[in-house]
């Protein structure tokens, strides 16, 4: 960074403290207020789309489930939706229900993961510990059904790989009751906590207009009052036959996105419960022979928003073109609209509020205009937590987090 820059520049990344993959945010500051932001991605480009062209149609779901360990049900679902559209395949009823159940289990564990990280970031490590503890049984259920806690690889063209054994149903229902109770508790704790209100409300607002311009999806859109959800709008799997609600909040701030995710977790429990009670009998897959020439588009609602796949076939056994778009690809650029004008202590939280998802590790540094590191990740985390402390003491002399010995 040899260029002359008049204003101090804050570099966040290439590894973001709250998320899994490398990304680089360069913030330009005026005092402590952000005046510009630039994002760099693709430190870990894996060439999935190019690899896909070298694999056979039935191998690709296992490849795309590895785009993201957390969304490893959504990507294969969007892909098979596209391929089944080309070939005119209708999966059996039971497979559609199993797909729905796996996708919603994924949503529960992904949203709880985010709630935990969000709590950690504002200094509520108890929330972090609790949310991750309640998430564990969900991962165990996924392992019992598919054999894997992540990267389930359970969706295949024409159906599912593994069935949900009937004797597992009572256990899933029991675990769901527990997850629902704990999520309710977490939701109430967030909604009732004046500190969390003061810390998250009005922070990082994405207006509805900006949301449309940046074409955001998922909780990021629904937190800004844009009522879109692929599960309802273009029903796939069994969503069209189940009774559930699309959660929206009008405010567009970090608090609204947190509320959307918490309430969606409860909705997901409802969806799974109903799907289990209605679970039809019969086979879980149909035989698939050839994929005819043609093109198809498929999308699915991942925990972070719409996952979209475009597949083209020339009648051979491999896709000739396969485009995959993860929801963060459109959600992350909206930081141009949310971070500018924000205080530096709020930026990391605002960036994290879209639940960005790329790949894995964490580091964060602040450099000044001469390229010297002035803040590291630890310092920025402190800044964020100090702000929570200020709010806590303003709200009635509550002990600072540091002295509570939970930091």
């Amino acid at each position, binding site marked *: 960074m040899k260029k002359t820059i008049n204003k101090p520049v804050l570099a966040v990344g290439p590894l973001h403290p709250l998320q899994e993959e490398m990304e680089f945010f360069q913030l330009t500051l005026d005092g402590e207020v952000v005046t510009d932001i630039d994002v760099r991605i693709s430190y870990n480009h894996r060439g999935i789309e190019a690899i896909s062209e070298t694999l056979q149609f039935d191998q690709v779901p296992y490849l795309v489930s590895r785009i993201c360990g957390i969304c490893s049900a959504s990507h294969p679902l969007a892909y098979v939706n596209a391929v089944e*559209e080309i070939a005119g395949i209708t999966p059996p009823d039971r497979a559609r229900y199993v797909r729905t159940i796996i996708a919603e289990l994924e949503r529960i564990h992904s949203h709880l993961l985010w709630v935990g990280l969000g709590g950690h970031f504002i200094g509520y490590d108890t929330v972090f510990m609790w949310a991750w503890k309640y998430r564990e049984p969900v991962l165990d259920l996924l392992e019992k059904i598919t054999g894997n806690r992540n990267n389930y690889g359970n969706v295949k063209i024409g159906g599912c790989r593994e069935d949900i054994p009937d004797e597992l149903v009572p256990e899933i229902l029991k675990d769901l009751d527990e997850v629902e109770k704990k999520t309710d508790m977490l939701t109430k704790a967030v909604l009732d906590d004046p500190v969390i209100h003061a810390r998250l409300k009005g922070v990082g607002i994405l207006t509805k207009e900006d949301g449309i311009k940046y074409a955001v999806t998922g909780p990021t859109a629904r937190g800004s009052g844009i009522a*879109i959800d692929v599960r309802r709008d273009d029903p796939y799997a069994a969503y069209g036959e189940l009774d559930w609600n699309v959660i929206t909040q009008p405010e567009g701030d970090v608090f609204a996105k947190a509320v959307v995710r918490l309430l969606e977790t409860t909705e997901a429990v409802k969806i799974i419960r109903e799907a289990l009670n209605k679970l039809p009998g019969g086979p879980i897959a149909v035989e698939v022979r050839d994929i005819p020439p043609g093109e198809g588009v498929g999308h699915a609602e991942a925990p972070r928003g719409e996952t979209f796949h475009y597949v083209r076939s020339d009648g051979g056994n491999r896709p000739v073109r396969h485009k995959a778009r993860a929801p963060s690809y459109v959600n992350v650029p909206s930081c141009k609209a949310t971070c500018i004008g924000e205080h530096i202590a709020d930026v990391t939280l605002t960036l994290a509020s879209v639940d960005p998802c790329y790949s894995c590790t964490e580091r964060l540094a602040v450099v000044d205009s001469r390229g010297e590191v002035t803040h590291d990740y630890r310092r920025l985390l402190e800044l964020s937590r100090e702000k929570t402390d200020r709010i806590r003491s303003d709200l009635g002399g509550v002990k600072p987090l540091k002295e509570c010995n939970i930091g």
Partner: protein
Amino acid sequence: MNCEELFDKISGIEDRFTALERPLPNRIYMTCEAENVYELNRFLFEDLGLRFVIASGCDPGGYFEVIYHYAYDPEGCLVNLRVLVRNRENPVLDSIAPLLPAASWIEREINDLLGIDFRNHPDMRRLILADDWPEGVYPLRKDTKVAGGGVEK
């Protein structure tokens, strides 16, 4: 507006397309030439109020295609605008990023991977490729050879 009315509105400017298909009730595919790219994207985004999903750059051989995918969420309809870029030596399209910031990243990505230049893009830097990637080597072009872990043209 339901899917029928949406299709009628798109059919209303049929002369701008070289092909218009509706293989399923809620899937629409149109094909147009490169010079219409900005105007037709503006039509889909502003006049019809569709949500931009993504664009897919393809190299079917001989020419390039960029397919702009849009969603009409109230009806769960996906609208796909295929733009043909016939000049393989000097592939250029008008950027839609000034109109639609959501398209900024994907145009940079297509520029990296297929070498299509997007005219009037506000910020045309590399997105996907590393800084030390050789100039003029486009990994998704079918005539780019990959050998021994390295890329040769």
